[in-house]
């Protein structure tokens, strides 16, 4: 027999699945905008939608806690959903920040995009894996994600060292790359937090 709580948990799961799709697309579009010089208005709309959904997830989670006083796996799921929702919301926010950089800096077509695109590729893999881990409650996949974060961190530091050496041509290029790498690095961190939340839902372990 289905429990009343199950209706709320399914709704929560559906909202997070929607957020997962939007946040993945938002980051993808932001990276395309950087590499192809496209406008990013759609990313800003997505970020706004993610904020609304994040607030709705928080409200629903609080309602479920207050109404049903869930315990065990139900409690862990709701607690983790609040964390994961925040992660998806931050994906959107950093995608928005990347678009802001593009708006401020203007044409970056003459800059070397290599390090940003290499990093972005890995970050998008991490996003995909964290979403799949959540959807499939796959803790083996989830546990691989934090390891991938090292690559992103190293790219971010590599760029900073290059900037300090003055090897980058042009202030505009290296400032924009630094900012975008910083946002990608934060996205990767949130992908790792989402992965940790998936492990927590399934096993109750905090890693």
């Amino acid at each position, binding site marked *: 027999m289905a*429990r009343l*709580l199950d209706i709320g948990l399914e709704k929560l799961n559906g909202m997070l699945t929607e957020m997962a799709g939007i946040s993945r697309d938002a980051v993808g579009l932001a990276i395309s905008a950087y590499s192809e010089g496209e406008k990013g208005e759609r990313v800003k709309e997505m970020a706004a939608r993610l904020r609304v959904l994040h607030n709705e997830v928080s409200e629903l989670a609080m309602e479920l806690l207050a109404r049903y*006083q*869930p*315990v*065990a796996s139900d*409690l*862990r799921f709701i607690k983790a959903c609040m964390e994961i929702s925040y992660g998806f919301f931050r994906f959107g926010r950093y995608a928005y920040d990347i678009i802001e950089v593009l708006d401020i800096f203007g044409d970056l077509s003459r800059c070397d995009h290599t390090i940003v695109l290499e990093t972005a590729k890995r970050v998008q893999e991490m996003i995909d894996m964290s979403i799949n881990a959540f959807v499939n409650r796959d803790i083996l996949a989830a546990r691989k994600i934090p390891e991938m974060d090292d690559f992103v961190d190293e790219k971010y530091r590599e760029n900073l060292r290059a900037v300090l050496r003055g090897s980058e041509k042009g202030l505009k290029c290296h400032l924009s790359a630094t900012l975008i790498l910083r946002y990608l690095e934060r996205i990767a961190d949130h992908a790792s937090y989402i992965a940790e939340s998936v492990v927590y839902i399934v096993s109750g372990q905090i890693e």
Partner: protein
Amino acid sequence: MMLVKEEQDKKKGELSYLNGEIIRVEGLNAWYGKNHVLKDINISINSNCVTAIIGPSGCGKSTFIRCLNRLHELVPDARVEGKVLLDGVNIYDEGIDPTEIRRRIGMVFQKPNPFPNMSVKDNVLAGLKFSGMKDRKKLDEVLRSCLEKAFLWDEVKDKLDLSGASLSGGQQQRLCIARALAVEPEVLLMDEPCSALDPTATAKIEELIISLKREYTVVVVTHNMQQASRVADYTAFMYLGKIIEYDKTTKLFENPREELTERYITGKFG
């Protein structure tokens, strides 16, 4: 499977010396006639803690706590095997006086049961008077002290000579707790003490339970899992006469080890 067993053994070991155990139950079995209701119970109850016993109806919760102060044996055809060690002494050993055990391990029942023909004052002091205490000053001190500990003094200090039955349900239950405290027990057993009370009276009893653990060890049987999670330091889940899981309350309600516990506390049972 082996990993789970090892984990359980480790957990048992961890729990056995927490906070100084006051009661250790070893291989406890109980029967009503041929009905085997408790099956090889092993548990350590820690002093100055609240331990909750949860589980579905008929799982043996009440029988279990009634075995802790030898009330079970008062039922015709009832039988017990195994040990209940109170401060290291088996309460079922020959020569042990069950009345003294019931003084040291008091009981509060589901339905408030003040002596109906006695005043509030006499209800609290009944045990002491039966045991022969006549020192009026001492009796007055005990009366006030126990009613204060039971959070009842302010409400009844001007009604001490009224019948205990004239109080509200919540007040009657606190009167029963005061009565149990008057004989200076070490452990207080409570069998669903709030099930007949409204939410306000329940909140008072819960506050009282938490306050009592400063001086006493409390074991409470409850059907209300939120109540267990609010008041208990440790919780045991019983099913079909066995203890399925026993752990810190926060652990048991957030991340139970046993699938059966998970299903019961999340309402996915049956």
